C-alpha cells in the first residue's frame, strides 16, 4: 500500500519535474540573430571584420547573461559578395531558420536583393551597407547603420565652403561606390551652391590618372579637388596628384578611410582631407565627446581578441547588433512587430559610427556630423572637425 502510494507520488513528481524542465527550456530558447555577409570574395574586407565583430559580441553578451534572460544564437551565411546567393541565404534565414532579426548584408547589392523577402516576411532587418537607396524611400522593415555617401558629400563640400572654396574639380571611380558618390556630390553641390567645374572619371583597373588630373589642373578657376573612389585607384590618384605638383587642397571620400590607404599612398597623402569614422582617431577625440568611450572600447576589445587592426566596417556590425539588442530589450519580446517599432523609436543611442536617432521617416538615424573631417599629417590621421 505504502509502496504504491510512494510510486504514485514519485510519478507525480517526475511529471511535475518534466513539466518544469520543459517550461524552463522554453524560457531559455535562444534569440536567433540571422546574418548573411560577404566573408569571402571581393568584398571580404567588409564581411570579414563584420562577422568577427558579430561573433565576438554575441559571445560576450551571452557570457553576461544574454538578452531578456535568453541566450543569443548567431546563424550566419557567406554570400561571397554575390547578390543572388545573398537572396537565397536571406530566404533560408527567414523560412527554415526562422530568425527573430537579421543583421547583415555587407554590400548594397546583397542588401537590396534581400529587401523584398524581408518586407514580405515581416522580420526586422538591419543592413550594414552604405548606399542611400536602402533607406530612401523608407521601407517598413529595413534599417541600416553606416552613413550614406550623400552625408560624405555634404561633409566634404561643407568643409570646403568653410575654407572659402566653391569651385571644385571632381574625379571619381566608375565602380558602384564612385559613381553613386559622384551622383550624390553633384546633387549636394547644387544645393549648397558649390560649382563642380571639372568632372573626370577613371575605371577601377586604371594604373595612371595623370591625364585626368592634368585636365582638372588646367580647368579655369578650380580651387579644390575631390576624389570619390574605392580600392587602390584613389591611392594612385593621390600619388599622381603629388607628382604633378598640384597645390590645390585635396579631398578624398570615406571609401579610403583606412590605414592601408596611408601605406599605399605614402608621403603623397600628406595634407589631404577626408570624412571618416572617429574609429581612426579614438585617442584624439575630446573627453567631452560621447562617442569616445564606445569607440575606444570597441577598438581595444576587437584588437585584443582578433590580433588584427580594427576597421570601420566591423563597427557597422557592432552598431547593428547593439541596436538589435536594444530594440529587443525595449520591446520585451522578440515579437517582430514590437521589435520593429522599438527600433524605429530608438533615439540617443551612441554607437561607434555615430549617434543614432531613428524615426518613422529616417531608418538610418545618423546625421552628416557623425563623419569627422580628418587630415593626413606626418603620415597619420589628425582630427580637424
Amino acid at each position, binding site marked *: 500500500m505504502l509502496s504504491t502510494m510512494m510510486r504514485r507520488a514519485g510519478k507525480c513528481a517526475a511529471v511535475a519535474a518534466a513539466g518544469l524542465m520543459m517550461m524552463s527550456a522554453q524560457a531559455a530558447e535562444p534569440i536567433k540573430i540571422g546574418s548573411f555577409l560577404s566573408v569571402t570574395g571581393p568584398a*571580404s*574586407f567588409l564581411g570579414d571584420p563584420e562577422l568577427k565583430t558579430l561573433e565576438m559580441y554575441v559571445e560576450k553578451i551571452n557570457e553576461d547573461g544574454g538578452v531578456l534572460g535568453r541566450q543569443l544564437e548567431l546563424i550566419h551565411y557567406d554570400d561571397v559578395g554575390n547578390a543572388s546567393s545573398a537572396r537565397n541565404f536571406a530566404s533560408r534565414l527567414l523560412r527554415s531558420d526562422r530568425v527573430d532579426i537579421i543583421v547583415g548584408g555587407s554590400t548594397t547589392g546583397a542588401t537590396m536583393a534581400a529587401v523584398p523577402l524581408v518586407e514580405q516576411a515581416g522580420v526586422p532587418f538591419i543592413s550594414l551597407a552604405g548606399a542611400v537607396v536602402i533607406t530612401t524611400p523608407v521601407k517598413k522593415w529595413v534599417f541600416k547603420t553606416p552613413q550614406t555617401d550623400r552625408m560624405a558629400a555634404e561633409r566634404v563640400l561643407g568643409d570646403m565652403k568653410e575654407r572659402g572654396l566653391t569651385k571644385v574639380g571632381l574625379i571619381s571611380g*566608375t565602380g558602384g561606390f564612385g559613381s553613386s558618390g559622384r551622383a550624390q556630390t553633384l546633387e549636394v553641390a547644387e544645393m549648397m551652391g558649390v560649382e563642380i567645374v571639372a568632372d*573626370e*572619371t*577613371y*575605371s577601377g*583597373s*586604371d*594604373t*595612371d590618372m*595623370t*591625364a*585626368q588630373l*592634368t*585636365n582638372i589642373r*588646367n580647368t579655369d578657376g578650380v580651387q579644390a579637388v575631390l576624389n570619390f573612389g574605392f*580600392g*587602390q585607384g584613389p*591611392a*594612385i590618384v593621390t600619388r599622381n596628384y603629388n*607628382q*604633378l*605638383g598640384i597645390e590645390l587642397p585635396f579631398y578624398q571620400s570615406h571609401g579610403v578611410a583606412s590605414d*592601408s590607404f596611408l*601605406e*599605399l599612398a*605614402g*608621403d603623397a597623402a600628406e595634407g589631404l582631407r577626408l570624412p571618416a569614422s572617429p574609429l581612426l582617431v579614438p585617442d584624439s577625440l575630446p573627453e567631452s565627446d560621447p562617442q569616445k568611450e564606445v569607440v575606444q572600447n570597441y577598438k581595444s576589445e576587437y584588437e585584443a581578441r582578433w590580433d588584427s587592426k580594427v576597421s570601420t566596417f566591423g563597427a557597422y556590425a557592432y552598431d547593428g547588433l547593439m541596436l538589435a539588442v536594444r530594440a529587443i530589450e525595449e520591446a520585451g519580446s522578440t515579437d517582430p512587430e514590437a521589435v520593429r517599432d522599438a527600433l524605429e523609436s530608438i533615439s540617443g543611442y551612441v554607437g561607434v559610427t555615430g549617434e543614432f536617432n531613428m524615426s518613422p521617416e529616417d531608418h538610418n538615424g545618423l546625421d552628416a556630423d557623425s563623419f569627422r573631417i580628418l587630415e593626413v599629417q606626418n603620415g597619420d590621421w589628425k582630427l580637424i572637425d
Partner: protein
Amino acid sequence: MFSEFLQYLFTGVTIGATYALIALGFTLIYNASHVINFAQGEFLMIGGMATVSLTAMGVPMILAVVLAVVLAGILGILLQRFAIAPAKQADVVTLIIITIGASIFIRGIAQIVWGKEYHVMQNFTSDEPIQVFGAVLNSQSLWVLGIGAVLVVALVLFFTRTLIGKAILATSMNKEAARLVGIRTQMVLMLAFMVSALLGSVAGIVVAPITFTSYDIGIILGLKGFVAAAIGGLGSGLGAVVGGLLLGVVEAMSAGYLSSDYKDAVAFSMILLVLFFLPRGLFGAKVVERV
C-alpha cells in the same frame, strides 16, 4: 598646351611600354607553339608580388628582384611541363583553355600566400618627379622605358645570334622539319615559356612602383598586353612593341582630350578598326594556307 600634350604622351608611353613587354611574352609563346598563353599576366603578378614580399622579409632589393625573376622562370617551366606538355596532341584551342585554367590556379595560390591587399614597391631611384617643358615625368617611367628597350634588343639578339634562339624560330616555322634536323621541340617549347615568364616578371617588377601590385593585377594588364599583341600582329616582335606603345598613347590621349569615360572604348574600337582593315594586325605575317 604643349606641356599638356607632353604630359599625355609621357603617361601613354610609360604604360604602353609595359603593354609592349607583356605583348612580347605573348608573341614569344605564340611563335613557338601557336598557343596564346593567357597565364602571361600571372607572370607579371608573380614578379611584382614576389619582389615586394621578399623585400618585406629584409632581402636587399636587387637580390629580391633576381629571385623573383628566377621564381617566375621556374613557374614558366613548370607550367609548360605539367600543364601544356601532358596534353601533347591536343589542338591549340584546348591548350589555350589550359592556360586560362592555369592562370586561375596561379592567382588562387597567390591570393592564399600573399593575401588580397594591394602592396607598394618603392621607386628604384628617387621619388622626385622630373620636369620636362612643364610636363612631369615619374623617374620610374625612365626605368620602365630603359629596361623595356634593353629587353627588346636582347630578344632580337637572342633570336638572330644564338643557336637556341634560331631553334625556337625553326620550331615555330615548321615543327616536324625542326624535329627532323635534331631540334628537341619539347625543350624549345619549355624554353619559350621560360623566357616569356622572365619577360613578364621583369615587366611586373618595373611597373609595380607606378601601379602598385596585388594578386589580381595580372588580369587586366595581361588582357591589355594581349590586345597590344593582336594590334601589332600576333607573332611579330616589332608588332608587339608598336602595338603596346600605340595602345598606351591612344588611351592616354583619349583620356586627356576626349573624355576619361571613353578611354577604354576608344582603345578597343581602335583594335576593331585595325583588325577590320588588317586582319593580321599591323605587322602580322602574310600566311598562305597550305593545302
